[in-house]
């Protein structure tokens, strides 16, 4: 794939969806063509009402190798949640 056709990531919001969901990627010479190619590749069965395309180079991803400390489970850290704390007496609404 030539450098003239960079990679784009495609996000589609379906007609009944609340948010844009990553649908896949494609190559296109520029943003306008990327939107059109996305329409051809990812909305041919009426899946979407809105399309976002983003140059893949603009996306910063978390480091998969640092999964351990980066996404450490919140389990066992109840004190992080409001439900952990009891209300003081006399407080009706909090």
């Amino acid at each position, binding site marked *: 794939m030539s450098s003239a*056709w960079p990679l784009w990531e495609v996000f589609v919001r379906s007609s009944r969806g609340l948010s844009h969901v990553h649908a896949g990627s*494609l*190559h296109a*010479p*520029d943003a306008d063509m990327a939107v*059109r190619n996305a329409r051809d*590749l990812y909305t041919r069965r009426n899946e979407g009402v809105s399309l976002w395309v983003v140059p893949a180079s603009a996306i910063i991803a978390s480091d998969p190798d640092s999964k351990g400390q980066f996404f450490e489970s919140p389990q066992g850290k109840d004190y992080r949640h409001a439900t952990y704390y009891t209300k003081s007496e006399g407080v009706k609404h909090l």
Partner: protein
Amino acid sequence: MRPEDIAAAGIKAPADVAEYALRLGDDSLILAQRLGWWISRAPELEEDVALGNIGLDLLGHARSFLTYAGSASGRTEDDLAYWRREGEFRSAHLFEQPNGDFGRTIARQLVASFYLYELYTALMSSTDPTLAAISAKAVKEVDYHRDHSAQWILRLAGGTEESRRRITRALELTWPYVGELFEDDDLAVSLAATGAAVLPSALREGFDAGVGAVLREAGLEVPAVPAAPGGGRRGKHSENLGYLLAEMQVLAREHPGASW
């Protein structure tokens, strides 16, 4: 209006309307066949899909028009697509032009899509309800085809020296076939008088404005080249159509009645 709906409704086209519908169906059928060649051969995967999509849109239009055309004589869309000879095809010469390189296909698409857009927009108010219904569905699709070809004209013209040279040449090779699309003949004149059809010459202004705007933006000239003889509406074709039909029809003729 899908071909199944037309067949199921038992509509029978008047003889002159059927002949007119045959022209519309043949234009789209031949161009769809041409575009099918690109599948797996386009410059990029995404463009492979785009050209395939456009080809399928056109095939859909062709099927509806041919089903309607055949209703006058009791012939099916398959009868008309696979069992007519070259001299019985009514397509204009533009549509049978070779694919050439990508630029040449885009130049042909530019002319075809801007012409078809003007045509179907006008035919939406045809007094013939079937022609109006098919056109109303088709116009949305050819509107997208217009956009696709215009975008590519801009990019090829503004690309490399080589791409600009090629698209300029492609337009010169394509333009001799523009005139035929807007020729009025007896059938078009008499059907336009009843409001069933649209006078081809009446579409020229909109076509020139639309295509002119794209070429201006791309910094390209409208080619000043002499018109080719034409005659497609009377069944007179260039050497291109015979080869195309031989390939398109071989399966149906080798295995009559086969279904898949």
